[in-house]
């Protein structure tokens, strides 16, 4: 195999393919959907934890919290206003500071505060707000005052936010859509225009064609995947492990795309296949949207479960390598199976009747 020849074809596809409608579609659709979902259900415009405060006595703590640059702080006139906002997710955590709070703090009397927490708020945001408030209290009192933080849930505690529910679908779409569509359409176009025959009568082999097409799909897949995770604040604590999982998922998507491209007759048929089998591709993510009502083991029956699940585990739940090793191993087995099928496809492409 020659990496130089792979690079020659890759460069040609980047230069001429990137201007095509499919390429733009593959990058733009997942990003647009993610932005749309964030605007509808999440906090795309406000990426900081949303904190609400009722200051009944001009507390220095309220002023200090307003100054922090890692919280988005909204002040309310009354406790009722704060509760109303908390119930609809306008703010994620709320705090009522009674008159005389600062004086009591200085005297060492106040050691207990109560956070009102929106039931669907992200755990990491609750933690950030809690840490920020505690830090400011210590600064104001000038001593390591042990503070007891109580939490009181407001709204549906068990519910999962729609942003969290939709994230698997968006991540899966980001990885699969471009990764699959770009190599498959490129392969089909080369077959239909018979340029595939032309290039493979040079020293370029079919395997090199597959690698080149797949590499472009995988790169686009990684790019859109990273963009989605960045937009949704989902890099987690282990970016290298996340990149590894995303890389494997992208290779799976690209290999599947090359396989489709080597088998499907034309672009119309490709879209028909994607439309008819799309539900199977996205089924595990859809099942994951409803952890409270659908048995989650069903999702594991679908190959694409192993595409998004490790990414979600690492980025959203702080999973380590040990937690996702089995999923990643299964994904590697699936990739190996696809590569085997691609070998058969390469032979098939070369023996079509003259």
């Amino acid at each position, binding site marked *: 195999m020659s990496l*130089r*020849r792979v690079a*020659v*074809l890759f460069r*040609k596809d980047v230069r*001429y393919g990137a201007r095509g409608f499919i390429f733009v579609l593959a990058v733009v659709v997942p990003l647009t959907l993610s932005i749309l979902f964030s605007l509808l259900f999440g906090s795309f415009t406000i990426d900081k934890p949303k904190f609400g405060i009722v200051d009944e006595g001009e507390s220095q703590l309220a002023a200090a919290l307003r100054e922090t640059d890692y919280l988005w702080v909204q002040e309310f006139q009354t406790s009722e206003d704060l509760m109303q906002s908390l119930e609809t997710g306008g703010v994620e955590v709320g705090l009522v500071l009674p008159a005389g709070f600062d004086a009591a703090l200085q005297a060492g009397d106040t050691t207990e505060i109560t956070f009102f927490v929106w039931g669907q708020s992200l755990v990491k945001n609750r933690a950030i707000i809690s840490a920020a408030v505690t830090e400011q209290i210590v600064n104001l009192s000038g001593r390591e005052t042990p503070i007891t933080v109580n939490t009181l849930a407001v709204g549906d505690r068990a519910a999962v936010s729609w942003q969290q529910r939709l994230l698997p679908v968006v991540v899966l779409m980001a990885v699969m859509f471009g990764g699959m569509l770009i190599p498959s359409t490129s392969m089909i176009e080369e077959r239909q*225009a*018979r*340029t595939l*025959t*032309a*290039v*493979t*009568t*040079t*020293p*370029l*082999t079919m395997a090199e064609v597959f690698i080149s097409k797949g590499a472009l799909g995988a790169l686009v897949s990684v790019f859109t995947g990273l963009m989605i995770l960045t937009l949704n604040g989902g890099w987690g604590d282990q970016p290298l492990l996340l990149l590894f999982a995303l890389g494997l998922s992208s290779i799976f998507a690209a290999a599947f795309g090359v396989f489709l491209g080597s088998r499907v007759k034309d672009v119309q048929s490709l879209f028909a296949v994607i439309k008819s089998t799309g539900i199977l591709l996205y089924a595990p993510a859809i099942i994951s949207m409803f952890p409270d009502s659908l048995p989650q083991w069903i999702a594991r029956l679908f190959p694409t479960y192993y595409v998004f699940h490790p990414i979600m585990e690492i980025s959203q739940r702080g999973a380590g390598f040990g937690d996702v090793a089995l999923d990643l191993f299964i994904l590697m087995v699936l990739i190996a199976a696809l590569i085997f099928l691609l070998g058969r496809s390469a032979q098939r492409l*070369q*023996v079509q*009747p*003259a």
Partner: protein
Amino acid sequence: MVNHSIVVHELTYAYGDNLAVDNISFEVGDAEIFAYLGPNGAGKSTTVKMLTGQIRPKSGKATLLGMDIAREANKVQHHIGVAFETTNLYPQMSATENLALFARLYGVKADIPTLLERVGLGTRAKERVEGFSKGMKQRLMVARALVNKPRILFLDEPTEGLDPVSAEAIRELILETRANGATVFLTTHDMLEADKLSDRVAFINQGKIMALDTPHKLKQQYGKRLLKVEIERADGGLDTREVTLDHAETGETVKRLFENEKVVTVHSEEASLEDIFIQVTGRRLIG
């Protein structure tokens, strides 16, 4: 002693149960123009696919430049150029970009402007191929096949459907390529073209080679040389008589015609490759 660029020995290929190429054997010498003639479905393209490493023979062996194509396709492909019958250029790329891409795939530095000049596309080098006529595309494909200075050039119906100027340009290029030392393997329906260009021709039908020799020898072996004599009748109309040459009584027959009839015209005729193909295979090349 003749060196052979291509040696084919008992080569066979089948698509399922359909035997496309049936145990064929032949050799093509260095710097020879070898025409491979046959109707659609005769096995021409399958033979070319095997010789260019696109498919592996089911049995038999083909050696190009001393290398077994089934085992060393990648090495062989460095030294061959292929121009296909059907246009397969990148339409969104310019003529120069198409050639540059293939030069990079071969890993060679090609003199692309000169190559485009040779096929009469020097002034259209930067234009996108999608705006080219069929003749221009065909010429560009021949130029592309020459980008790596191949030692064996495969041309599949290179002048089919072309205007006379484009067809003549390609014929000149074929002769020029041979003059530079390359072997040319030409598949065509066009018997006149094969007759005009090739050193030897092979007739293939239903996967088998039915005849193989120089056009001259094939005509000698299979064809009849004739004299066509037009004679004016008493009523002023014309009759045509055919006199077969190379017979013992030919001279006497011609003499009698001139003595007894009013001869208007005399033409000598020899069998065409088309006639011989029909005689050998029992079918026409086209239709």
